[in-house]
Structures are given as structure tokens and as C-alpha cells.
């Protein structure tokens, strides 16, 4: 019976027609997959396109969602005023200006990146029905951030009137706890001050210096030079010795230590702790430039940083055999062609603190509807090991030495341990003008043991001077605040 049927079918079988049928069926299946994929992939970015009127339609239907800090405080929310128009109320004024951003005259920060959620609604149908009855707009979804209001306030206060940036993150997860960029602006009044902001190209108020500012790395770059040196000499780096006479000379090129300090005889630890330029210029000359370049690539130079929540500038540095000795000496101490963004340096520090594993920095941990029911959760994402675990441990030791007996001794205290690297990045033509850097991390003690680092911060103070003098005190205030020292 079955045989017969099969035979019957076989007889009617027309191969060319069958082939054509399969061809079109495959084509349609491929097209269907493409359409599904395209619509899901571009759901968020296309809605923000200025040619797309759908955002405006949604804005008319829904009240823009609120943004919350990690402790539940409202950073920004919207309400309908007496005229019936929607007003965006930034509760903390200037405090979160760059990281949260604005949504008038274009968008920035979280307001931009999470615009899709802030204008769409997942409100339950009962709420919608109520609102319909009252002829009100639907409440759109809310965004819950990882930002810590207290830390943000302290960081902002500590930076004071200086231009610069502070980033505080959690190395084990990549959560951004605070992000300050100065000069700042008040998002509430941005429409009125828009033109003046645009005209004032010098101060760059609208630039988020924490993510978009590119600076010479200065001595903080010695972290990278050290990583490479340890990688190349895993056994012998400890036996490194150098006698600093205040400067390093090769041919006609000369590198001087900061303020011409003579450091005397140094091993590798102390070269790092004292941030001796001459010693590092010497180390830099011994590096294999190709390997150094590939290490730099691994450390995310010349590539987009792996984060979805921020618009970051790409740090630029290429080393090759063509790099002149003069440049190489400069690069080894973070001057010359080195430019790095604060968030990038923070990510490298986080990776060291986290034993080499880099977590992608993120600032939004969940989106929820008006009733607080989670719509979407953003989990910590691992980027991968950018530094070997052994190297990271060595670097941790080096950075702790900086605090113990180097340029960061101000951070020494009994309540928590800190580690880091200071930097004074010279810029411009005038000698002595430098940006103060500090990048480091801190953790609490568990008995006498050091616990895993809790927070990691990077500070850049434009044009202030030496990192040890200007950036480290800011770091101390933030660490103290984090570990509640000042209130004890």
C-alpha cells in the first residue's frame, strides 16, 4: 500500500519544478529570518533617528519615563504642568548633567541611550484603561541606574571648580557608581542656554569629559609600560635596577623626571611607586615594539570600547618599528602621541583590580514599567581577560606600593586599603602645565586579609598640576565617603 503510494509519487516527480520550488521556499525562509532579525536588531536605534516620526507619536501618547538612582531616588521625572504640557524635572540639577543627559534639543547620556524605553510603555492594560478614561497619557517605562547619589555628590564637590572628570565603578561587575564631568550644565535650562553652550567651544560644557575627553596619559601610562615589561620578562623583572640621576639620555633625546627629582638607585617596584620617568624611559627602550603594540590592541587602544551605555572616544596609540627612539621614550612615560580617555583608563584599572578580567561598564541595570515590574534587566557582562591573572596580581602589588611608599601615600589609612597610580600629564607648550591623574581602587579588610576591591576610580583634573597633590585628595574624599570614614 505504502509502496504503491510512494511509487505513484515518484512517477509524478518533476525534478526541475521541485528544484525551483525548493529554491523559492529557501529564499522566503531566508528573507523571513532577515526581516525578524532586522526588526529586532534595529528596534532601538531606528526610533532615535530624527527622520522617524514614531518617537514623536509615542511622546504624544506616553509621559516620558523617570530615571532612578540605585537607592531608588528619582534623578529625573516628568509631569504635566497646568498648561497641559509635559515638563522634565531634573531633581538634582547639575549633578547628573552628563551621565543622565538631557532630552531637549537632541539627547545625551541615558536620556539618549535609553530613549526607546523612556518613550515606550509596558503599562498594564488596567492602568491604560484608567488613563484612557481620564484622557491622560500613559506612563512610559522607567530606567533604574547604578548611580549612587552620595558618591556622585562627593565626587562633584571634590572636583570643585576644576575642569575634569571622575569615574567611580565597581570592578567586579562594571557598574558605574558615579560619573562627573566638569564644567557641567543644568539640563532643566538647557534650551535657554543652548546657544551659549554651542558658542563656548573652549570649555566644551556639553562634552562628557569622562568618556569623550582624550588626554595625554602621563605617568598613569606606566601601568601599561609595566604590564608589557612584566609580560616580556616574567622571571627577571624583579632583578631590574636603575640608577636615576634626574634624567635619561639617549642620543640627543632626553627625558627628565618630574621637577628634575633625582631618585637614585631604584628597583622595578620603586621605579613605579616613585613614578621615575628616567627609569621608565629606560624600560621603554628595552621593549619589543611589535609585542607592545599587540598588547596595546588587547588593552583596547584604537578600538571602540566595549560598552553600550556611553559614547566613548577611541584612545589612540600605535607603536611600531618605525616609532623613533624619542617617541618611544615619551610613550613609555605616557607623553607624546599617547591619548587616552578617562573611562578607558578606568576600565584598565578595573581589569587589574579584578585579576585581569574586564567587565563591560554599564550604568542601567533594569527597565521597569510604571508599576515597577521589570521589563528588561541588564546583567553584568564579561568582556574577557585583557590582562593575564599573574600580571594583574603583580600590577596590584605595584599599585599598592604607590600608596605605601610612593606618590599616593595620602591614601594610607586603617579603614580600607587603597592602590593606584598617579600621573601628571604635561600638555601644551608651556612647561609645567599638567593634568593631574589618579587611577586606582580600594577594598576593605576582612580581619587582616584584604578583601576583593570594592570600588575603582579614575580622576582627571585639567591643568591642576601633579597628580599626587591634586588628584589623590579627591580620591581620598571619595574612598572615605564610600567607606563612611568621615562619619565615624
Amino acid at each position, binding site marked *: 500500500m505504502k*509502496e*504503491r*503510494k510512494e*511509487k*505513484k509519487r515518484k*512517477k*509524478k*516527480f*518533476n*525534478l*526541475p*519544478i*521541485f528544484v*525551483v*520550488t525548493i529554491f*523559492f*521556499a529557501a*529564499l*522566503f525562509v531566508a*528573507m*523571513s529570518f*532577515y*526581516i*525578524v532579525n*532586522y*526588526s529586532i536588531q*534595529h*528596534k532601538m536605534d*531606528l*526610533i532615535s*533617528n530624527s*527622520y*522617524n*516620526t*514614531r518617537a514623536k*507619536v509615542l511622546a504624544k501618547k506616553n509621559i516620558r519615563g523617570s530615571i532612578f538612582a540605585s537607592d531608588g531616588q528619582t534623578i529625573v521625572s516628568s509631569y504635566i504642568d497646568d498648561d497641559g504640557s509635559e515638563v522634565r524635572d531634573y531633581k538634582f540639577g547639575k549633578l547628573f548633567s552628563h551621565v543622565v543627559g538631557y532630552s531637549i534639543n537632541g539627547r545625551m547620556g541615558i536620556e539618549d541611550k535609553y530613549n526607546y524605553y523612556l518613550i515606550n510603555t509596558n503599562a498594564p*492594560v488596567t492602568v*491604560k*484603561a*484608567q488613563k*484612557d*478614561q481620564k484622557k491622560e497619557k500613559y506612563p512610559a517605562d522607567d530606567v533604574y541606574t547604578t548611580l549612587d547619589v552620595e558618591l556622585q555628590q562627593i565626587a562633584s564637590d571634590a572636583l570643585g571648580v576644576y575642569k575634569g572628570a571622575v569615574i567611580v565603578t565597581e570592578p567586579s561587575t562594571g557598574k558605574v557608581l558615579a560619573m562627573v564631568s566638569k564644567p557641567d550644565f543644568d539640563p532643566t535650562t538647557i534650551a535657554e542656554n543652548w546657544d551659549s553652550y554651542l558658542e563656548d567651544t573652549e570649555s566644551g560644557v556639553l562634552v562628557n569629559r569622562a568618556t569623550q575627553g582624550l588626554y595625554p596619559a602621563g605617568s598613569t601610562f606606566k601601568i601599561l609600560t609595566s604590564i608589557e615589561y612584566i609580560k616580556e620578562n616574567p622571571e627577571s623583572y624583579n632583578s631590574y635596577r636603575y640608577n636615576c640621576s634626574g634624567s635619561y639620555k639617549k642620543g640627543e633625546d632626553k627625558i627628565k623626571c618630574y621637577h628634575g627629582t633625582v631618585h637614585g638607585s631604584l628597583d622595578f617596584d620603586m621605579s613605579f611607586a616613585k613614578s621615575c620617568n628616567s627609569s621608565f624611559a629606560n624600560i621603554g627602550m628595552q621593549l619589543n615594539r611589535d609585542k607592545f603594540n599587540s598588547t596595546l590592541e588587547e588593552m583596547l587602544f584604537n578600538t571602540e570600547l566595549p560598552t553600550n551605555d556611553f559614547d566613548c572616544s577611541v584612545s589612540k596609540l600605535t607603536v611600531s618599528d618605525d616609532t623613533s627612539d624619542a617617541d618611544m621614550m615619551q610613550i613609555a612615560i605616557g607623553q607624546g602621541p599617547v591619548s587616552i580617555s578617562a573611562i578607558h583608563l578606568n576600565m584598565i584599572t578595573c581589569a587589574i583590580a579584578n585579576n585581569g578580567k574586564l567587565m563591560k561598564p554599564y550604568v542601567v541595570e533594569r527597565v521597569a514599567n510604571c508599576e515597577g515590574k521589570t521589563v528588561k534587566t541588564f546583567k553584568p557582562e564579561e568582556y574577557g581577560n585583557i590582562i593575564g591573572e599573574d600580571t594583574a596580581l603583580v600590577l596590584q602589588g605595584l599599585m599598592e606600593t604607590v600608596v605605601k611608599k610612593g606618590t599616593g601615600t595620602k591614601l594610607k589609612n586603617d579603614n580600607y586599603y587603597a592602590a593606584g597610580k598617579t600621573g601628571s600629564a604635561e600638555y601644551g607648550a608651556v612647561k609645567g602645565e599638567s593634568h593631574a591623574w589618579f587611577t586606582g581602587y580600594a577594598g576593605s579588610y576582612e580581619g587582616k586579609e584584604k578583601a576583593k576591591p570594592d570600588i575603582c576610580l579614575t580622576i582627571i583634573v585639567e591643568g591642576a598640576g601633579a597628580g599626587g597633590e591634586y588628584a589623590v585628595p579627591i580620591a581620598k574624599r571619595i574612598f572615605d565617603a564610600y567607606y563612611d570614614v568621615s562619619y565615624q
Partner: protein
Amino acid sequence: MNLETYINEFSKYVICLIMILYTVECFCVFLHSDEESRKGLYFRQNILMFAFHFCSFMVICFETGKVAYLFFYAIQQVILYMAVALYKWLYPKTNRLIVNNLCMMLSISFVFLTRLDYSKAVKQFIIGSTSLVIALIIPFFIRSLKLLKNLKWIYAISGIFLLGLVYVLGTITYGSKISYSIGGLSFQPAEFVKLIFVFFVASALYQSSTFPEVLFSAIIAAAHVGIQVLNKDLGSALIFFIIYLFMVYIATKNIFYVIAGVLAGSGAAVFAYKFFAHVRVRVQAFIDPWSVIDSAGYQITQSLFAISSAGLWGLGLFQGTPETIPFVEVDFIFSAIAEEMGIIFGICLLLVCLSTFIMIMKISADLSDKFYQLIAFGLGICYIFQVFLTVGGGTKFIPLTGVTLPLVSYGGSSMLTTLVMFAIIEGLYMIREDEELEKKKRLELKRQKKEKRRRELKKRRAEEARKEKIRDMQSKNDRYAYEDDGDEIIYDEHLEEVYENVRYIDHARREEKPAVSERREDVRKIVRTGDEEVRRRSDDRKKSKRHKTEEGRRRPEERKKNVRHNPEERPRREVYRNRPDRYYEEEYYEDEYYDDRYYEDEYYEDDRYEPDEYYDDEEYYDNEEYYDGPDYDD
């Protein structure tokens, strides 16, 4: 009243679910082999169609608050169900999947045009209803007009003439010459020419598809494509090209024509890209629409906005803004549907189109007349490729060409053409059914003839056997007489052995299957001469110790051994006896009883080992030896 909110919120899921179920039914159709067992499926499809239409219009009425739409809905529903019922009544043998899909797509079209532009929906509805009436007559014509096969020159000339007329007289709309107006109604001849073109290629290639015929048809096809490129209607130029390419492949079964065609097509495409600015603009808008978002890329980017904002379940009717896409109801209706009904619904719509296409291909493969087969195939390609061009173009899967989505997009010419196209395919389906019926009839006739012949043969053989027996007896008597020259029968050991040998040889020879006459001749010769060879063979035989008894040959077990197929199959007979085609089984089993004759019948000589042949009707019928009628299969 917040009922509206709830309807808004849930209707999209309900509509989507209905569409998913409908699509599943579409493909379940292929699990059943005949229309009779698909009846339940079709009925469910009709119910789902009704549900979709009803839900959608309910949402539209709630959203707009206009009662007029309810009347519009009622009329649509009546017309669509009349179409389904009339087709069923007028042509009980039509393929109902195609009719159902056609009505489903019409209802989707009416829903969306009502949502986008009520006046256009009404216009489309009037044209659609008229077209349905026209389409209702067509299967009848297709079935009865054998004339259609010999009109290739008329097809070629009228096709080129109609397209040429557009080039000379056509009005330019949005950069392309695609239509001209007669008495206030604007026509798009390219739509109708697609049908004519399919008929042309079929009539040019159905008899023979050697190089001269292919060349001739290629020249005419190139003319069609060329005029359309000059008219700046790239979409239909491409459709002509693809239809031709695939039809040549089916007609010749030669992949090299396809390769040559693809090469020529790519060459032409490169040429067109270099020399026609409008082609370059299209390609640019495909590669990076965002860089030309103000001009050439505007349409496609708006379409992409619509699709990307849809989500799987859509925004719901009236919740999106598909009207921002220019000409949404013509070129981008798919994007509008996807935005408001959801990506899932859109994919289901594609799959419904695909199931229609697969059914057309199945009909085409089942047609034994090559002309009809080519037509069904060409129309199927024309349909599915249009769907592919418009959906792929609107989603940036392929460059945008500005083709309508058949039956769903707004456009009278397109709708009429597609309905006529489906009607032709229904006509062809009925031809197939007719063919099958005729085949059965001829088969029956053949069987009766054969039965008759068999009976005669049987009679003749019986007669011969009787004569043979008499002759045998005579010769036996002669021999005994010779040996004994008296009435007394003396037992001669030697002679007895010879007889035995003869029987054995007879049996052995039979296994080697020589013709009976020859065999008998041999036997006689051996008997008369008492040949040496016989003795030799007798010695061999003694060693084998087989067939010693005189009854050997006549024993039933022996006979059974001669049956050349597996005796275990015998019980099947009982099963088959109750089937309508038991003729063939009986015939087949009869063979066992008449095995002597079976071996001697020349007809069976070759096929002895494949008894299946005798009852597989197609197999049997397609065997040239048995088939007297005209042969289309070659």
C-alpha cells in the same frame, strides 16, 4: 468607555493567532493527497478568514467610531463568501487552497486599505468584486480552449505592442512610464502583459525546446525586458526576465540555459547600472539608504522605521504611523502590515503566499500536457517573484524596484491580473483532474480489451493443448507400436529412461524460458532420434536426483515454484479484492493460475519479475507499448 483600550490591547494578539492558525492549515493541506480529505482543513480556513476579517473590522470601527465601516465590512464579507461558495458550486473540482488564500489576501487588503485610505479601499473593493466575477468565468474557457496553444505570434506581438504603446503614450508617474488612461481609468499594461508573456513562452517552447526555439523566444523576451527598462519600470523588466529564465529551465531541463541567462542578465545589469542614472540611484539607495535619506533613500528608510518599530506582535491597528511611508498602499503595504499587525503576522503572510506558490508548482508538476504545465509554472513564478521583489525591496533585503504585493496592494490592474492568473491556474487544475478522469476511462477500456484478448488466448491455448495431447498420444502409440509391433506393451527400461529425460529436459528448458514451440520441436526431435545428447543429460540428471516421479511436472508444489514472485504476497489478494481497482489485482493473480500461458505470452516475457507493473495504473499506462493516444510527455 475603556472597553476600547482592552480591544486595542488584545485584538492584535487575537488577529496574529488567527493568522498563525490559518498559515498552519495552509501547510497541513500538503499532508493530504486528495481534495476530498482536505475538506475539513478548507472549512477551518474559511472560519479563520471570517474571524480575521471580523476582528479587524471590529477594531477599525472602535478606533474610528464610524458605523459606515460596518456596512462596508458586511458587503465585503458577503462578496468574499460568495466567491468561495460560487467557486465550489460552479467548479467542484477546483483547488480550494488557492481560492481560500486568494480570499484571505483580499480580506487583508481590504482591512489595510480601509485603515490607510477609506476611499481607495472602496475603489479597490469595486475593482476586486468585478475582477472576481471575471475570474469566475475563466476556468471554463481555459478548459475548453485548445486553441490557446497555437497563438505564439499573437502573444509576442500583442505583448510588445502593449508595452511599446506605454512607451509612446504612457504618462510618467514618479519617474516611470507605467500606465495610460482610457476613459478616465488608468491601466498598467505591464501587468496584463506578464500573463500574455507566460502564454507566449509556453506556446513557443511546449512542442520542442531545441536551440532555435529558445533563441527565438529569447529575442522576444529580450524585447519585453528592453522596453520595460526604457520605460524605467525595472521591477517588471526583472519579472519578465525571471519568468523567462525559469520557464526555459523547465522546458529544456537544461541548467546551462539558466547559467547563460544569469550571465547575460548580470551583463545587462552592469550595462544598465552604467548607462541609466535611475538604476544607479536605486542601487545607491539600497547600499546605504541613510546617506540619501532626504532623497532616494527616503521611502526605504521610512519603511525600515515601520518594520523596526513593529515588534513581534505589532503595534495594533491605528497605533502605528505607516502613512509616513510614501505610496505605502502600493509599494510598501507589507511594511504597513508588519508595523501594525506585527512581524509574526508579516511572516505568516509570506508563508501563505509561499503555500500558494507550492500548490501551483504541484499542479504544474502533475499536468502531463507540457503547454499547460509551462503555463502553470510560469504564472507561479510570476506570482512568487512579485511577492519576493516587493517584500524584499521594502525590507532592504534586495534593492527596491517598486512592485505591488499581488492581491494585497492597492492597484486595479495588478488585482485584476492576479485574480485572472489564479483563475487560469484553477482552470489548469481542472484540466489535470479531467486528464486523470480520462486516463482512468482509457485504462478501463484498455483493461477490457486485454481481458478479451486474454480470454481468446485462453481458448486458443486450450484448443492447442488438446491437439497436442492427441498428437502426443499418437506418437506414443507409434513408438510403442514400433518397439513392440503389437498391442502388448512391453516395458523397456531404456525407453522409459528416455521419456523421463524428456520430461526433465522439458522442465529444465522451461526454466531457461525458451519459447514453447521451439521447446516442443526439440522434444520431438529428441524423442524421434534418441539422440546421444539425451543420454548425456540423463546421466547428469541422475546425479541431481530430482523429479524422478512421473507426476513431477504436474505436482502442485512444482507449479508453485514456477510462480516468479514471492508466494508470501498471496494474502494481499484478499485486501485488494474490496478496492475499486481490484481489476488489476485479479488480473495479476490470475497469472498464477495460468502460469503456462503466462510464460508463453510475449507481453509478459520481459516484465515477469515486476508484477507491480500490472496493477499500478500510471506505470502501466505510461508504458508506451500500452498507450495508443497522443504522447505529450516527450
